[in-house]
Structure formats: C-alpha cells, structure tokens
C-alpha cells in the first residue's frame, strides 16, 4: 500500500538538511518520497522510491500546471505502485520504462534535466510506448478527478447540496 502523509516520516529537518534535501524538489528516504518544502511524504511498497519520484516529475511534465502543488501529482500516480504490487509484469513495465527514460536523459537521469523542455524532449521520444500511454491515460483521470484540485481551476463541483446555482450566480456574467 502507498500512503500519503502530511508529516515527514522519521526525518527531521536537520537530517534533511544534512542530506542536502532542502531546496531539492523531492527527497528519497528509505522507501519514501518526501517533499521537504511542503511537508508531505509518500511511501512506496512495490516500486523503487526513486521511480516514484521520477513518475511524479513525469506527471507534472505531461500535464504541467504551475499552480498545482506536487502533492496532487503524487496522489495521481500512486496507483501505479499499488498496481505494481499486484502484478509483476506491470511492475517491470514501469521500472523498465523509468530506467529507459533515465538512460535517454543522460548522466543525471530524467530528474537531472533542469528545463521542462529538455524533459519533454525525452518524453516525446517515448510517447508511443505502452509505458507512456499507461502513465498518461491513467493520469488524465487520476489528476483531474481529485476534488481538491478543482478549486485551483475554478471548478466548483457538486452543487445539488447547495441548492444548485439558481441563487448562486448561474447568470452573473457582467462583462458582456
């Protein structure tokens, strides 16, 4: 099982500092991917935590929204860890896919590429692979179907319990 938790698992801020964690986007610790800046962590059980960290970066590069924090991308891809735990062939697809991505990215690996354009260039090379399609296809639901991200886009979601929009601005446009 993958758990997302809001506090850092076991690592103090000092330890993170020691590992050079602060300032980096995501830190790997044991079986966890940690976001020191935003105080959340994600523990993996089947996939390597490095793989998960790369998946999170890859998810952001596929559907980049600068106003959406990493946490939601992490939630969006955690299903791959669960799936990998149940299905060895699936696990291999993901691990091999990420390994290939890293290889194509040069010495520092995929996460080592500094510009989004560079990473997108690598993604373009693998766009047609079942690996990429599995990640992208799952993501379009798992990212945008999180109720927590809807307000970031100005989508208000469920409205029945609030009595619809009949008294809440269904026709409030003013600039026409």
């Amino acid at each position, binding site marked *: 099982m993958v758990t997302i938790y809001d506090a850092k698992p076991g690592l103090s801020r000092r330890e993170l500092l020691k590992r050079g964690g602060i300032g980096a986007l995501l830190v790997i610790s044991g079986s966890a991917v940690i976001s020191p800046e935003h105080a959340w962590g994600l523990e993996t059980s089947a996939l390597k935590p490095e793989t998960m960290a790369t998946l999170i970066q890859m998810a952001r590069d*596929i559907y*980049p929204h600068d106003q959406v924090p990493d946490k939601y991308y992490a939630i969006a891809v955690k299903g791959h860890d669960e799936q990998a735990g149940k299905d060895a062939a699936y696990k291999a697809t993901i691990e091999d896919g990420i390994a290939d991505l890293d290889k194509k990215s040069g010495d520092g690996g995929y996460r080592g590429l500094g510009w989004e354009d560079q990473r*997108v260039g690598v993604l373009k090379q693998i766009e047609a692979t079942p690996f990429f399609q599995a990640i992208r296809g799952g993501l379009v*639901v798992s990212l945008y179907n999180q109720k927590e991200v809807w307000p970031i*886009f100005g989508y208000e979601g*469920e409205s029945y319990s609030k009595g619809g929009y009949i008294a809440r601005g269904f026709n409030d*446009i003013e600039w026409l």
Partner: protein
Amino acid sequence: MAASFDLNNDGVVVIIGSGAGGGTLGNELAQKGVDVVILEAGARHEYEDFINDEWGSFAQLAWTDKRTTSGDWRVAKDFPNLPAWIVKSVGGSTTHWAGASLRFQEHEFKTLSTYGKLEGANLLDWPITLAEMEPYYAKAEAKMGVTGTNDWPRLPGNNNFKVLKAGADKLGYKECHTGNMAINSVERDDRMSCQQTGFCFQGCKWGAKWSTLYTEIPKGEATGHLEVRPNAMAIKINHDASGKVTGVVYADKDGKLQEQKARIVAVAGNSIESPRLLLNSASGKFPDGLANSSGQVGKNYMRHTTGSVYAIFDKPVHMYRGTTMAGIIRDEARHDPSRGFVGGYEFETLSLGLPFMAAFLDPGAWGRSFTTALDHYDHMAGLWIVGEDMPRAENRITLHADEKDAHGMPIADVHFDDHPNDTAMRNHAYKQATALYAAVGATRTFPTPPYPSTHNLGTNRMSEKAADGVVNKHGQAHDIKNLFVSDGSQFTTGAAENPTLTIVSLAIRQADYIAAQMSAKTI
C-alpha cells in the same frame, strides 16, 4: 401497483429497454390496458441516487460492457472500446440526456427527394411526413413539458448562453434562444422546476428534467399493467415455425437464462444493442438475423455530425453553472447547399466539468498547449454542433467474430467513416463558431473533436418498401408482424435535430397502432 407477470404468460407485450423509446411505449400501452413487461439490462436507480460527479455518475449509469470500433472516426483511436456514451439503467439514456427537444423540419423526412442522390450516402425518404408526425410531436411535447410549447416559458439563460447570444447577435444570427427543453421551467407534473445545478448529464437530482425513469415508468406501473424487470439482459428473440416471435431469452440478475413468453416483442435497446440482438437471434429460418431479409439490420449507423467549440476569454464565464444545454442557434439548420454541403446543423450550448473537459477536449493531448487551456477553465464558454450526417451502408453494427460478453453473446463492433458531406459540415460549423466567439473577444478557441456518440441512430431503418429497410412506418418489422422496433434505430435519416422528441413521438404513435392491431386481432 406495479404488475408482475408469469414467464409463461404469452399474452404480454415484451419491450426490450426502458429508455426514451421503450419506457414511453410501455407506459402508453399500459394506459390502454395492454399488459407489458419491460426487460431492462441495467439496474434501477431513482433520482435521489444520482451523483453530481462526472466519473462517479458515469460508473453508476453508463453502458460500459465492452464494444469494439473500427473506421476513420477519431473515437476509434481515442476510445476504442467506448464508441458510445449511453446508459445501462432503468430510464436508459433519458437519465443522462440534456433535454433538447426539437421537431424535425419537413424536408428532413424527404432527404432523397430534397438532396438528390449523393455518392457514398444511402439516402432514403421516410415513409412518414412531418404533417403525419405533427399531432404526435404535440403529444410528446405536452407529455415531456417542453419549454417554449404549450405556453410554458423558456428557461432563463445562464452565463454560457449569454456568451452564445452575444456572439449570435454580433454575427447576425436571428434565431437564438434558450431552446425547447424537456425540463420544467415551472413546477408541473408533480415535479420541481430547474434549479440550475448544471449536472443534467449526470441525471437530474431534482427530477426537473424529463426521464422515463420517473415519469412514464411509474405512471405505467400505477395502471397495474406494467412490469419493469431490471438487470434483465435480452440475448435472443425466439420464433415459431411460422416465423412469428414467441418470447425473449434473457439473463436475469444472477446471470441465469430465462425465457419470457410474448404476444408481441418491441426492441428498444438503442441503435447499437437493438441490431445486435436481432443479429444474434439468427436461426435456421432467419439465417441473417431477425427482420433482416433486406440485409439492412445494423447498417446506416448514424451519430450526427458533431463536434464542440470551446473558447477562452480574458474574463470569467463559469459555463458549468446552470442548465447544460439551454441555448440554441437554429439559423444554420436549414438546407442550403451553397454552404458546400447538404442538410444543416444546430449550435447548442454545452459545458463539461473539469474531469470530462480534461478527457474530451483533445483526447490524448498533453503538454502546455493542452494544459494552458484547462488553466482557464472558469474563463471558458462552449457549444456543441449537432448536424445531419449521411447514412452509409458500411457504417454499421456487426457481431464480433470471436469476442463475447459475460453471457456468451458476441459483443458489438461499431464501424464509422465520415462522409465528405459530414466533414464539410463540421468544418463549416467550426469556422462559424470560432468567428462567433472571436466576435465576443475570445483569446483562444478549440475546435474539439466529436465525443463517443450520444446520439445513435438508423441501424434498423424505416422504409416504404421491404427491400429498402427493416421496419415499416409504424416500426413494425417488414418480415415479422409481431416484432417492432421502438427506438432511434428506426430513423431512416438523422435530421439536424436532437433525436429524442422524435423517438418519443414515434413511440406514442406506435402504441396507438399496436393497440389497434391487437384489438383487431391481426397480431
């Protein structure tokens, strides 16, 4: 009290499907004292159970049994196992539908005579005229509470409509209003008026929008002549040596096969399932499937020439608030070949929530060009194009050669290629809609490809002559007197208008015919 009929009762009319066609026919017959069993593959969810959530509602109501696709339409690439977005639930697609209820135009019943022969199109005149349909349209509008008819006011315009209207005015379009909607604009029929919740596609939790689920079906049940059997998937229609149909084999809620005997069978499973069932009922006597001496069962599949255009503005719109489809421009619905195509199309307001917008705006797309569109979701307005598409013999439903469903029934394959007329019409509509939004100040527009089909038509077409089609002007099979087709698969051609008002009108008309024939003992 809802009736309950014995499996061996061979005096009942068995209807397959409880949607627009089947649900209406069932109630109309029950009101006349005819005993009816409706077999419905889906479960029964009442309107309180509906979910204001796009994927959640899809999981609750949509038909997700596997289908396959082929042809040059983009749906075959992006959604290879989801050719259609329709429903498997009591009430059928009238749970999901948006309520737009338009009469066909006179010439749309006479396309072969009006448009002439068109290469690659299997055009044919309907065996009925608008004049014959008018009294039934009136009955359907009264039954469904269609706004703008019977002195019912039109719905108030929401934000998305106001943008559409402003653009329509700038372009000089004349006929633009909030539509003829089968949605209560005032309380009537013991149901509330529209509360502008904006989840029409997810089932109306207020019951303001007409659906057979909470209008026709309970009314029919109240007569004591109607039984709706949910979780009952029809697999095969049986017949006797004379060729008359005698009963329907179905898988019950436990997957066990049962046979309901019948005096008459009416097929209303929507235009993919209805031909699938007729084809799967092939026998020694009818080796090509029931009612298929013409070879037309499954052919001429139509889905309307659709597409959407979304536009982004520098100021907020909040298009998702309020009635999804209460907004229409009808000026382009005319037949005017000078535009480079025959037939016409409507513009109707449309909005998707963020989850569906992400899935359908440009399926498969990724990267910033795509995501910056979603970044301005609350600044978006949108419309849907719905136009007449050309019937083609090769656009068809067939039984899959080797894949079967959970009950061992071959799954359906849906083949569709656009006719050049469809493409020309769609491109015209994209251009007009882009100009419309530009006129209101859009900073970016998106010509969005057609979604999985919500309108599915034509696969058991109606024809004057038995050689040209599957059913006659009453939806009665040319080959088998006590077999009827009662859904949109009867359509000879598709017209520019949303189909449901016509499906309901045909069902009312068919009920009169069936009852009369039963009294006369001809069936």
